[in-house]
Every structure is written in structure tokens, then in C-alpha cells.
């Protein structure tokens, strides 16, 4: 039995795993204490749950629990990491490095820092979405304070060479921040080996609840940050505000399941993704965006030539997918990530991001393949451009009349 629309947008957000949801509920109902309450058992049991969750989050990524700071989500983590380090260490230099395909939470934070007198280099990725190591190394200057590169891209799923980038940063004394919101549960992360100083996490991309995230802040060598929210001094002064116990428990449980199950789960998901790509690549003039190998198994980002993006989205309403990241999908602009890869506007416009997850089935994949075959065919039948292409006309040589 298929339920419609078929959800293939796991990179926008994941359902909360039912096992996670069940474990959250007691912390909403009978165990409702404020973890900061030190005067009674309600507070103590909440604090204990918070610390247990911190251990679970740390364990997934090879960190010490003391290195994990709770935030409201990866966007806040990215802001805290980048602004917090930039303002704390600005005496050492005011140059920052990032990549054009980063999430808006990083790019907009960088723009904000430019208004505070920082200089930012935005690197162009290669055509496959990956940043070249030589290019990365060359961008780091003596006055470079921090580099921020995402582990896994949210739109095309490519995995950046974080290990090597970390070595380069450490050798040059540059603080290295990594947005790992899309990476947890998908790629192995071992912060005891990676030379990463700050790493952002989100629960709701890994079957935990929305509204909770974390920032890894390295202790050896120690990285210091300027807090962005002040108050009661929670999280050792780095992030004030009452801790949402149920959400923290949810993130801890979600990350624990990720640690226990990711190996087997990723194999199953890779099988589904390969099946989807095999099915879709049978359609003419279909292009895969981003490297196929250095990529999480969950992601398939495809451009369909000679199809208009909006019409395509309307035509495949039976599947819930996105044409870019959820955060920018309100705009009709073509994906800035795909444009940074050098895709022409037309192809960037007609791209679909399929992201597969824990609850995706073979039947759903097969239905999606059939739907795309059928609807792409229909749309192209109505397209004069497709007709011209089929007649062998090179569309790039056509002189269009103004109207």
C-alpha cells in the first residue's frame, strides 16, 4: 500500500523515528522538570537525561560529552560557531574562507560578518561539487582566522574531503568549522581523528525532533567562542536558555539509533538510490548533479533537460521532493548550488532533489520511476524546444526574437 504523496525529501527534514518519539513523551508529561532546577528531584532527573543525551550525541561523532553544546538547531550552531569564533579571535586576523555551495545559515552569517569588517573568500566548487584541496590550501592566508566547509551538501549530497582540509587548516593555524547537519547517520564521523575545531549538528535531519541541535567545540586544542545569547549561564555560559529536555532526549536517542544502525541502513538506502538512478537514467537527456562516488547514498539530484521546473514540480505532485533546499524553496530562483557547479539556468531550473530515508520502500521508488517516465514524456510532448532538439537543431545557435 502506497501513501501519497510519497515522501522523498529526507534532506529537508525526517520524520521523528517512532521509537524516538515514544522516548520523548515522558519528558513532556510526568518528567517535566527544568534541568536547571537544583532544588528538587524534578530538576535532577531532567538534568541527568540531558547529560545522557549529551553522551549519545558525543558517541556518534567520537567527541567528549564536554565538547557538546546544545542549541536550537544547526542554523544556530552555525551562527554561534562562526560569529562566536570570529569575534573572539578577531585580533588574529579578519579573513574567513567558505564555499559558494554552503547552506544559507553559513553564507548569511558570513555576509553579516562582512558588515563587521571581515573579509570573506567564497570558493567555487569544481563541476562535481567538490572543493579542490590545492584551491582550498591556496585560499588560506596568514590572516585567515576560520574556514567553514560543510561535510555533506544538502542539495547534491557530495561529501567534501574534510579530513584533508582539517590537516591543511591545522598546519596553517586556521580554525576549521564544519556544518555536519546533513552528515550524521550518513557518513562516519570521528572527531578524535578529524582536525575539526567546530562542528554543527541538527536532530531533525537524523530522525530526531525539530528545534534542537548541537555545536561541537574542541577542548584540545581548546577553541573559545563569544556567546551569542546571554542569560542564566547554561551550557557553561556559551548558550543561555532553559534546556528543552524532551527535545534533547529525542536528539540523543536519534543519534544513538544512528550509531547502532547506520551501517546496515546505508546499504539499504544505497540500493534504493541506485535503483532510482537506474530507472531515471533510462529517460533521455537526464543529468546527475554532483559527484556520484563522493556522495551520501541518500541523495539523487537530477536535471531533466527540455522540461520547465515549475511544470515538472506540478506534474509529479504524487511525490514530495524539492527543487532545491527547503530553506530557499519559497523563491523561484534556480538553485544557487547548481549554478555554482556551472549548470546553466535551464538545467538548474529543472532539477529535482530526491532524498531517500529510513522509511522509503522499493514500491515507492518504483512508483516514482514510472511517474517520472510518464510525466517527463507528457511535458516534452508539449515542448517546442524538445521538438527542435529531436529535429537536431542546436538550440544554442538559435536567434530568439524579442517579444
Amino acid at each position: 500500500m502506497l501513501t501519497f504523496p510519497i515522501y522523498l525529501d529526507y534532506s529537508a527534514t525526517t520524520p521523528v523515528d517512532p521509537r524516538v518519539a515514544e522516548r520523548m513523551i515522558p519528558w513532556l508529561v510526568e518528567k517535566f522538570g527544568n534541568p536547571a532546577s537544583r532544588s528538587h528531584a524534578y530538576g535532577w532527573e531532567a538534568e541527568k537525561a540531558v547529560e545522557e543525551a549529551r553522551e549519545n550525541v558525543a558517541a556518534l561523532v567520537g567527541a567528549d560529552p564536554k565538547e557538546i553544546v546544545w542549541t536550537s538547531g544547526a542554523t544556530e550552531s552555525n551562527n554561534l560557531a562562526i560569529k562566536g569564533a570570529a569575534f573572539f579571535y578577531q585580533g588574529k586576523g579578519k579573513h574567513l574562507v567558505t564555499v559558494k555551495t554552503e547552506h544559507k545559515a553559513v553564507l548569511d552569517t558570513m555576509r553579516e560578518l562582512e558588515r563587521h569588517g571581515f573579509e570573506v573568500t567564497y570558493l567555487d566548487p569544481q563541476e562535481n561539487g567538490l572543493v579542490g584541496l590545492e584551491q582550498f590550501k591556496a585560499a588560506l592566508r596568514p590572516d585567515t582566522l576560520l574556514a567553514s566547509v560543510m561535510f555533506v551538501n544538502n542539495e547534491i549530497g557530495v561529501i567534501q574531503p574534510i579530513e584533508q582540509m582539517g590537516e591543511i587548516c591545522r598546519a596553517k593555524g586556521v580554525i576549521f568549522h564544519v556544518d555536519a547537519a546533513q552528515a550524521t547517520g550518513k557518513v562516519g564521523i570521528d572527531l578524535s581523528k578529524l582536525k575539526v575545531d567546530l562542528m554543527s549538528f541538527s536532530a531533525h535531519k537524523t530522525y530526531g525532533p525539530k528545534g534542537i541541535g548541537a555545536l561541537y567545540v574542541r577542548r584540545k586544542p581548546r577553541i573559545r567562542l563569544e556567546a551569542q545569547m546571554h542569560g542564566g549561564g547554561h551550557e557553561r555560559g556559551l548558550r543561555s536558555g532553559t534546556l528543552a529536555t524532551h527535545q534533547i532526549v529525542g536528539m540523543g536517542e536519534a543519534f544513538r539509533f544512528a550509531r547502532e544502525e547506520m551501517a546496515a541502513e546505508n546499504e539499504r538506502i544505497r540500493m534504493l538510490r541506485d535503483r532510482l538512478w537506474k530507472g531515471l537514467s533510462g529517460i533521455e537527456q537526464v543529468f546527475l548533479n554532483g559527484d556520484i562516488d563522493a556522495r551520501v547514498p541518500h541523495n539523487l539530484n537530477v536535471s531533466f533537460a527540455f522540461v520547465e521546473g515549475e511544470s515538472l514540480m506540478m506534474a509529479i505532485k504524487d511525490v514530495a521532493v524539492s527543487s532545491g533546499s527547503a530553506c530557499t524553496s519559497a523563491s523561484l530562483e534556480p538553485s544557487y548550488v547548481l549554478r555554482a557547479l556551472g549548470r546553466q539556468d535551464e538545467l538548474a531550473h529543472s532539477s529535482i532533489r530526491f532524498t531517500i530515508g529510513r522509511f522509503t520502500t522499493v514500491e515507492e521508488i518504483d512508483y516514482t520511476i514510472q511517474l517520472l517516465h510518464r510525466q517527463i514524456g507528457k511535458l516534452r510532448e508539449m515542448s517546442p524546444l524538445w521538438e527542435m532538439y529531436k529535429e537536431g537543431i542546436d538550440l544554442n545557435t538559435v536567434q530568439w526574437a524579442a517579444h
Partner: protein
Amino acid sequence: MFAPAYLDHNATTPLDAGVLEAMLPFLRERYGNPSSRHEYGRAARAAIDTARSQVAAAVGAHPTEVVFASGGSEANNLFIKGAAACLKPGTIAVSAIEHPCVREPANDLKRLGWSVHEIAVDAEGRVAETDFSAALAQTPALVSVMLANNETGVLQDVAALAAKARTAKAWFHTDAVQALGKVAIDFRALNAAGVNALTLSAHKIYGPKGAAALVLDKRIELKPLISGGGQERNLRSGTENVAAIVGFGAACELAVARLEADAARLNTLREKLEEGVAAMGAKVFSRNAPRLPNTSFFALGGIDGETLVAQLDRAGFAVASGSACSSVSPEPSHTLLAMGVAPDMAKGALRVSLGRANTDEDVARFLQTLGETVNKLKGLAAVAA
């Protein structure tokens, strides 16, 4: 199962069963990201819109004036830092009894060249008129005075204060986190008087932790604390915490519906409590000032508050010696010190904050246990002496 009587509702409240019901679908099948354009996303967006209307209605605001945040601390930081970032460095005036999440961001502005005027309060914990006038004489750009204090429960006449602040052309903010659900709040009337923004939080009104709001006069320009995807009219980026926001909306609706009855009942319980503790020789703080109906802050001379709360916890009563957020530090309550209470007296303070589930019997049992505990501690003190 043994469950202590919970008498610490100003720290946090238990989630209402109806609020949980409203939230559960969003932790289960309605999991879409509100920014997604497909059906899952649109359903989540619609739920947030509904919650925004519920929150707005609870305080007589327009839905477009509500900016969701992750908590009261964030909302207070957003106003203070966000407004300051749009202004030339000047003076910010905050009352001496503000929560740390107002005082600390205000103090942080000093690094940017701001000066902070701490507005004195009188012995009852009410903003002192003379010092408020002195603060305004410095033509502050920003003023923040809490509607209800988290420890004493004292209410400030923020409409009158804001009206004065307006003549000094200051932007006026009030932290209404403890007031919501306990006293009526009318943002339209407050706004007309000169209040530009107020902070609300879900987990103090039987809603979930993790959702709060800054209700903001649209004439006020703020810079966001958190940049990114541009959610909340670009004032607060980050994927919305849909389930918590839905819970916040439901909790607001319930709080308004129950306000009158709850307030009357809790006020009666509180009176009974205070008659009892006064009979034990306790000093009840702010008893002569307008207060929240549920809050009682008192001290028994010669007894340490920390010791007392620990004893009471063992006996099955969850109370506090002050606000939860500063309970990490053993310092006496800054609210009491600002009221001129001697540090020794302040160290003995105990806060009882009542809530919906509390009964006459809870209060009677509490009084009995408190009396026994106090006698025991006094006995020990006498032996030690």
C-alpha cells in the same frame, strides 16, 4: 508511585494533556519542514500560522507581530541585542530585578560602547519612580522592565512606565514570560501606551520547552541574532520547531480560557499559604505590592534557604530558593538584594509558585512539613550554638 508535590511552577510547568494531544501529530505523521512547498511542508506551515494566531490572540496582538524563538532567553536577547545593533551606542535602562537573560545582554552591550542604567526598585520590589525618572533623564535608547518578577511575582505598571519612556523617545520592552496566563495582557493597549515589544514563553504556561515569542511593534527595526534561511520575516532563521510552536499556540488558548478561574483559585491558596508562613514568623516579600496570584517568596530568619529546600525535597515538596536559572550559584537572590533585603535574610528565601494541579491539601501538608522542618533546623542551630 511517589511524586513530590510540585510547587515550583515559575521554574517550569507540566505539559497540559490537551496541549500534548495537539503536539503529537507533529512528532509523528505531520513531520514536514514548513519551508517545503509540498503537502507535508504546507501542512506544517498552516499549523504554525494557526499557532501564531493563537499566541497573538492571547495577548491582543496581531499575528504578524509574533516572532517565534526557541525560548524566552532568546527572545529577550533578540530584542536587546537586535535593537541595539540598529542604533548608535547610547544608554540602555533595565530594572535591577530583571532576569539574567535581560541583564546579561544589556551588560554585554557595554563592549560596544553602551552604558547601562540599572533602575532601582523600592522595598516592595516596584520600580522606584524617582530612579526611573533619573534613568529617563539620561535619554536611554532602550528600556526594559519586566511585567512580573519571577521570584517575588511583583507586577510593574509597565503601561505607565512605557508612557514616560515614550516621552524620552526610548524603545520599551517588557519580559512578560511570568505574567502570561496569570494576569491579563493586552498588547494593543500596552502598545498604545508605549510598549514596543514583549516576550512570552510556552513552558511557563503548561506548554512545551523550546518555544517562545517576541511580540514586536512593526515600527521597531531589529537585526537578527541568527542568520540563515530567512524564517520569521528574516528575524529568526532556522527550521521552525513545529511541534513546540503548535503546543505553544494550544497552551496560549487554554491559558486565556482558564485565566480568571485559575487566578482566583491560586490566589486563595496563596493567601492560605502566606497566613501559615507568617504565623511561623516568616517575612513575606512584596506582600503589599500587586503580585502574580500564584507566587509567594518568603524567608524564615536564621534558616538557610538551600538547606530548607533540600529538606523539603526529601519530604516530598519541590520548591525553590530563587529562580531556576541562577540556582547554579549560591548567591542570594539579586531581586531581594535590590529591594534592600539584608544578605543574611535573603539567603533564607524560599519561593513557592503554585499551579493548576495544586490543591488545598498540598498547601496544608506543605505548611505542616515546613513547620516541622523549621523546628528541626532551629533545634539543630540551638544545639550548635
